[in-house]
């Protein structure tokens, strides 16, 4: 038995549970573990809140107590967030057309839209869990955002050919503007939905909202823009996602400061 194995037994032992003989033998022979186990087993009297304070709290709560409706299940929020992102992109496609979709090869279309669908699901689930305190976290918010950017960046870098483009900036700025114009209403609508819950970490919620809104803009650009130059897509299409995510993060930071 190693020192690491002992770590699993320290707290049960401190709470009075029996420990296996081999663990006891290790503790007897290991001075570091012995002192750690002794220190962690030491108990202190638990602090008790004052009765005046408890009365104050109860009076405050009971005075304005009204029934509340519990939040809808996470899947409802996830569906709503994905629908908002998809709807905004669909409106944009309706206005701008589907030239990009027709320019894509089958492989490109399959890879890009499958990845976008998967990333939208991951971002929406992460975001829906942000508004419920104590939710199980299976992927930290930062990983969801960076994973999305990395996956899309890798797909564009691998499946699209880089080309020299004389109008790189002028055409690129048009795509950036379209992407952000699609992202902005998505972010606002998502924020309205998220306000129904309790956002404990506005920075993470802001970054995820920005990323999901940026994904909506990217979806629109991939369907509308026929330019298949890897440089153009990596800079301007993915740039719209990065700008949207940064915007959401900055708003989250501001919200957190204002709250304090």
């Amino acid at each position, binding site marked *: 038995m190693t020192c690491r194995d002992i770590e699993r037994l320290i*707290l049960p032992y401190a709470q009075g549970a029996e420990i296996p003989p081999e663990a006891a033998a290790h503790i007897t022979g290991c001075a*570091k573990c012995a002192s750690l186990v002794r220190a*962690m087993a030491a108990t202190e009297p638990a602090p008790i809140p004052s009765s005046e304070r408890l009365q104050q*709290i109860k009076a405050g709560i009971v005075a304005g*107590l009204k029934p509340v409706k519990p939040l809808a299940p996470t899947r409802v929020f996830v569906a709503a967030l994905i629908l908002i992102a998809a709807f905004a992109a669909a409106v944009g496609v309706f206005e701008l057309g589907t030239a990009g979709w027709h320019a894509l090869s089958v492989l490109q279309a399959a890879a890009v839209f499958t990845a976008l669908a998967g990333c939208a699901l991951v971002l929406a689930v992460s975001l829906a869990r942000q508004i419920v305190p*104590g939710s199980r976290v299976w992927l*930290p918010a930062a990983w969801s955002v960076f994973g999305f950017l990395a996956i899309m960046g890798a797909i564009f870098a691998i499946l699209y050919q880089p080309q020299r483009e004389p109008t790189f900036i002028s055409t690129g700025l048009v795509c950036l503007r379209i992407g952000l114009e699609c992202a902005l209403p998505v972010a606002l609508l998502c924020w309205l939905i998220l306000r129904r819950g*309790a956002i404990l*970490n506005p920075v993470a919620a802001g970054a995820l909202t920005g990323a999901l809104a940026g994904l909506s803009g990217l979806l629109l650009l991939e369907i509308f823009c026929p330019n298949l130059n890897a440089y153009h897509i990596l800079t301007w299409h993915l740039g719209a996602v990065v700008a949207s995510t940064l915007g959401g993060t900055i708003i989250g930071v501001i919200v957190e400061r204002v709250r304090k």
Partner: protein
Amino acid sequence: MERYQRGDQVAAQQLVDLLSGRLCAFFSGQMGSPAQADDMLQEVWLRLHQARHTYRHGEPVLPWMYAIARRVRVDHYRRRRRIELREVASESLHNVPGRANPVPDLPTFGELIAPLPESQREVLILLKVNGLSIDEVARATSSTAGSVKQKVHRAYNSLRVLLTGAARGPSGAGEAS
């Protein structure tokens, strides 16, 4: 909790009686002062009350409660730190207090974990003082179970070093902290 959401006053009062001790232990362990913990209770109950609709039936109550309490503590800590920084800047450094009441023999749990980084201290308090499982701590701290296990392992390693240093002599613990 469900009765509290339905507006049952008795259930609300029972919940305050049932959970306030745990919250007090959580704040006291983090802030090192029962008086401050008592002050924080009012603020955390206000937030719990405002966010009571976010509790979902069938989910564990404690991670939900500690997630909110943790946020209140972080906000309070940052606010207090800003005020302290201003006070230090406006006064002078000779008023900075040392560690109160040093205990010469066995350290208390609070003193033992005081030198640890904030995140490791928080995880140990939730596990030992508040009796949460690894999964519940992960939920309360918005992290994964693997991340919590890693923090606990690092905390234990640091404590081993600190305790060995303390056994050699009081200067060892002082240097490590």
